[in-house]
């Protein structure tokens, strides 16, 4: 029976007691029956606000319609038209602020909009299981393009450049491709076989991925610029920020990046089967309230910490993390301590963290970000006992690459300056994703990759005609 409107079909998830002991996906995914029923709720709005609020303007309404008709293959191909990696975007996009947030079915009933993210993930998983791939005919061109970094920005750029017919080579510093999708976002949120599948698709369509290639170190940017007809820089914003407070040299204090790289990329949760260790105590404080914070806190829980507290200077309402991540973290027994800001990390005489000093905060008038500004309450400092602290307060572009490319114009923030077509000040060199925006999102990186591919194409055509 078709039921238009109605309430969202609930997503089956791993039980809390089980999932905090493993790194498998928390959502179990819709069944065919469920996904069709969920899609059939769609009222197929004429103006499709979901599409307007999608940063890559995916044809969401058509995709939903096809799912409702059980035509998963067509639904998948529609998603693929605008989004190179729907299986991933479906799982990590902040849908509540984009497509799902403007779905009329959710207005007044938060969380009741069509579950577009899970629909998208379903059809992509279905295509993967059934060997359905987007096929395109490539008319090979002679020109070559180098992409630096292999995160979502470069992945989407690579696909489009191949469609135009260019020879595409990705240079990636790490021993695995995928950027944050690989080293940052934990497997319980984004299973790594999905990332590997998307990367193998790149290889299949003829993209060459050169791992262990740190541009600026073993290969110079300037050399790439000579050898290739154009370049896309998608090096991300992978350098950790520290608060700059006392005690950050202590053992037991991690940047979220180190904590997540050890855990996810190096699989420290499987130590000693895997060689890379991690020290995660019983009482863990994680500073921040973004996706990275939730990921670190939930990893800490899975590494065996009994007591994990998120320390945030504003309140849950202002937390930038996806709703689903906050909810999952809370379900898993992680405490969100609001209105506190760390002032000092304390250690024992062996140099290990044993406490954190926090100051209480109150909310003031909105600041530049539009969120109320947190104001410290003088004299309200108190000490909390912790043995591990993870700082998840953001990252910035890596200076390794930037110091080796002084000719590239950057902002005071260290992000790469581009024009509206994503061209940098160097001719033929484009940039996008976090390297250009600072901490942003997967979907914005995908959009940038696509836009840069167009710019590169135009640039090469122009160059050839003059």
């Amino acid at each position, binding site marked *: 029976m078709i039921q238009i409107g109605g309430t969202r079909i609930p997503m089956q998830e791993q039980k809390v007691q089980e999932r905090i002991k493993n790194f498998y996906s928390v959502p179990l995914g819709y069944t065919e029956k469920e996904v069709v029923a969920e899609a059939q709720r769609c009222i197929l709005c004429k103006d499709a606000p979901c599409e307007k609020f999608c940063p890559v303007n995916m044809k969401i309404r058509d995709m939903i319609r096809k799912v409702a008709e059980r035509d998963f293959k067509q639904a998948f191909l529609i998603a693929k038209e605008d989004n190179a990696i729907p299986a991933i975007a479906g799982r990590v996009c902040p849908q509540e602020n984009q497509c799902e947030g403007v779905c009329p079915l959710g207005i007044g009933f938060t969380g009741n909009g069509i579950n577009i993210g899970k629909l998208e993930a379903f059809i992509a998983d279905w295509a993967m299981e059934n060997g359905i791939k987007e096929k395109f005919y490539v008319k090979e061109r002679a020109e070559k393009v180098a992409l630096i970094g292999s995160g979502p920005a470069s992945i989407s750029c690579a696909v489009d450049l191949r469609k135009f017919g260019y020879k595409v080579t990705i240079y990636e510093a790490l*021993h695995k491709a995928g950027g944050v999708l690989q080293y940052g976002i934990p497997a319980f949120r984004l299973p790594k076989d999905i990332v590997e599948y998307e990367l193998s698709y790149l290889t299949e369509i003829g993209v060459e991925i050169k791992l262990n290639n740190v541009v600026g170190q073993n290969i110079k940017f300037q050399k790439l610029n000579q050898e290739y007809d154009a370049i896309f820089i998608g090096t991300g914003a992978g350098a*950790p920020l*520290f608060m700059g407070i006392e005690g950050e*040299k202590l053992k037991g204090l991690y940047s979220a990046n180190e904590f997540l790289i050890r855990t996810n990329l190096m699989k420290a949760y499987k130590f000693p089967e895997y*060689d890379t260790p991690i020290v995660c105590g019983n009482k863990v404080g994680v500073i921040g309230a973004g996706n990275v914070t939730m990921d670190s806190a939930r990893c800490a829980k899975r590494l065996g910490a009994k007591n994990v507290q998120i320390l945030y200077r504003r309140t849950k309402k202002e937390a930038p993390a996806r709703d689903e991540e906050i909810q999952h973290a809370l379900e898993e027994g992680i405490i969100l301590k609001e209105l506190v800001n760390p002032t000092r990390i304390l250690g024992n005489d*062996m140099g290990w963290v044993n406490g954190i000093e926090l100051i209480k905060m109150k909310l003031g008038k909105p600041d530049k970000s539009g969120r109320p500004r947190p104001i410290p309450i003088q004299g309200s400092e108190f000490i909390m006992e912790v043995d591990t602290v993870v700082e998840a307060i953001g990252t910035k572009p890596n200076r390794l690459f930037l110091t080796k490319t002084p000719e590239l114009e950057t902002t005071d923030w260290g992000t790469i300056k581009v024009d509206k077509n994503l061209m940098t000040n160097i001719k033929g060199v484009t940039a996008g994703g976090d390297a250009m925006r600072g901490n942003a999102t997967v979907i914005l990186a995908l959009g940038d990759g696509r836009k840069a591919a167009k710019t590169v194409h135009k640039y090469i055509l122009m160059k050839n005609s003059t």
Partner: protein
Amino acid sequence: MNKIVAKQELATKIKLVEIYAPESVEEAKPGQFVILHIDEKGERFPLTIVDANISKGTISLVFNEVGKSTKQLGILEEGDDILNLAGPLGNPSEIENFGRVLCIGGGVMIAPLWFVASALRKAGNEIIGVIGARNKDLLIFEDEMKAISDEFYITTDDGSKGYTGLDFLNKILSQKNINRVVTMGSVVTMKAVSEMTKSYGIKTMVTLTPIMVDGTGMCGCCRVSVGGEIKYACIDGPEFDGHAVDWNLLVSRKRIYLPEERISSLLNERLGGINP
């Protein structure tokens, strides 16, 4: 994949491997390091470049078998592959014509020091070479160092060859006009040398070896304190001014994973050195 094309035992538990690394060799400079990742389950760990042969496409590394990863590397043979090798990473040592440079290498780090000292010599410097180890059997690269040194000294902790300890350096430091000191070795050695040279006011460069993961500035694991500022050894170093280094912090942070390293090592012995 990078193939081991030659392997040699230089002393007990000290081995040299020559690895085919065509993507790394061209930019490999003295003082830089590579990160190895032997197999899927292995860790990423750094070793300093000892030589680079552009025509053969190989780089050489010398390592001490101290724990799981280095022992695992030690049992690989010529023809075996290493899953991943990244580098050169870090900045090259400063090579200029400084005048007279005192180059002090300790233990396994004599080998990479030789690479630096050779470059300094090519740049026109007069080299006073010093190599040291716990005892005479652990001395490596003796002939190589001697060959590029205008003056050459040996020292051992137990006095089994050459001088005993480092005190003799005072004589050299006070009698010769030395423009720069470069030292690579254990923290104990580099710290002792730095403390000595400080009173003579001679600029002293050391190579710091904190624990690393990515080696590209992404994690902050390798943070050290130099001149009161936090630096990342992998992208700001690994060569730093020895007089400004917070040695206690370095020692403390190098010991973060001692219990875990012991577990890995024991397990490795039991499994005969091969990852399951």
